[in-house]
């Protein structure tokens, strides 16, 4: 399991990479491992406004289903359409090709974010 530095993590096992006024969302390696083989990702609509902590996507495995919560507030500007045909990318590359959505950050609303070290400690607990 990997936990890259330079991106932030939430207690619900999402990650966020902030670059300027945009942010990229995904689920962590730990989350994809716990879910097992991902079979479907329900992506948000482009243009949708999401609040921090709001469920913006759904990730499904064969026997489990999980809402994915937005770490920050913003407007969805891009979604990873490749996941529609290849949801397994979330399993194989959770922090790269398995990203879910990009948002334009609006305001400073956010859920509690952790660094990689803090998330590692959180998982150990």
């Amino acid at each position, binding site marked *: 399991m990997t936990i890259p530095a330079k991106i932030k993590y939430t207690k619900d096992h999402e990650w966020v990479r902030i670059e300027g006024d945009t942010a990229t969302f995904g689920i962590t390696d730990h989350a994809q491992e716990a879910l097992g083989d991902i079979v*479907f990702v*329900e992506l948000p609509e482009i243009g949708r406004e999401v609040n921090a902590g709001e469920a913006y996507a759904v990730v*499904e*495995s*064969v*026997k*489990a*289903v999980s809402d994915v919560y937005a770490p920050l507030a913003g407007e969805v500007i891009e979604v990873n359409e490749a996941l529609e045909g290849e949801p397994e990318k979330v399993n194989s590359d959770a922090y790269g090709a398995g990203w879910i959505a990009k948002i334009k950050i609006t305001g400073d609303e956010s859920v509690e974010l952790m660094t990689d070290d803090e998330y590692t400690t959180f998982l150990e607990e």
Partner: protein
Amino acid sequence: MRFLPHTDTDRSAMLEKIGVSAMSDLFADIPAEFHLDEGSLNIADALSEAGIVRKFTRAAEKNRNATNTRYFLGGGTYNHFVPAVVDYIISRGEFLTAYTPYQPEISQGTLQALFEFQTMIARLTGMDVSNASMYEAATATAEAALMARRVTRKNRVVMAGSVNPRYRSVTANYLSRLDGEFVEVDMAGSGTTFGTDLDKLIAAIDEKTACVIVQYPDFYGSVYDLSPLRAACDAAKCLMVVAFSDVSAFALIESPGAMGADIAVGSGQPLGIPMGFGGPHLGLFTCKQKYLRQMPGRVCGLTSDADGKRGFVLTLSTREQHIRREKATSNICTNQGLMCTAAATYMTLMGDAGLATVARHSAAALQSLVSQLPDHVTAASGARFNETVLSFVDQEARDAFLAAAKAGDIFAGIPLEQIDSAAEPRHLLVATTEMVETDDINDYLAILEVTK
């Protein structure tokens, strides 16, 4: 007791192994105040097998049935022919007594039959995908409305007043406890006689509308072009839901899919399932591929096993209640599985040609009847499949005819107000199937003549 294998000796030996002394000890965790005395319930004395057969036979003999009476009854339940093979196949213990195929390795028979069923239903209705059943048509219609709300994230449902009143009232009931609006568009007095007024329906659509529900052929048997509605739904970005009560129609007339339906639901009872006083029947649920993940109910999908051999499994189960619980697409669990196997067997026996014959004979019988009606009875105008409304001068005339027909071993129709409480009590809902012979129509017409 013949269904219980244990003797008292077995029971004693087993109790001893468990380490208790009496059967009642097994129930010691139930507070004593709730224990019943043996034999204290007010239930009939036990019957032998012969006694059960005698009792049921006597009860059955009190009911007039399709082996001794000619049926012109429809309204959602139809007296189509049921081939012997269908009942034989669903009587086989391996189909009849199997559980839901959650263990696919030892349930491939049920699963392949479901896959074949889904395929044939999708083809017959002209839709992309089918689930593996709902209870019956009215609840299937309600589920279609709920699905359209999920797909569109809108919550206004518009329904034509020419949909079977039972589908309407069940759908209204299902929606009444949820946020949103349910609009029924009255089809009476609109210039259309016992049919569907699409202009009036289209006028009721707005941008908040999740779906429009029509029946095709409608409750009164009317067949009409749905393309204006399709265009209106596209403009309002809402779904077109098509309900139907006799799926055999689509072997003869254009399917809901060809008419542009997003969701098509209805009754599969005509596919080899006896009327059975209303059940068990078969609810059909089909939709476009892109809405698949919002579809309620179980579905069977193609896959392969550990050796690479083709096989089938229940799939997309994360939509269902046992996984998604309060967020499930529906609460449905037990469905009409065996009736899917019945319908699959029936369609296999029939093929395109047989299904078309069933539909053509059903429609031809209606045409024969309607074209020979005496002057004092009028039939609703326009294209009708196998069902129409006959109007009499008054209730007395209609009821006199019904009584005479009944005395002549004909159930001549359903008084319309019996299902459609808003209807005047002088109309008769009449349906025909391939079980209606020319002689039956002649007898029907002769009784009409004498009760003029």
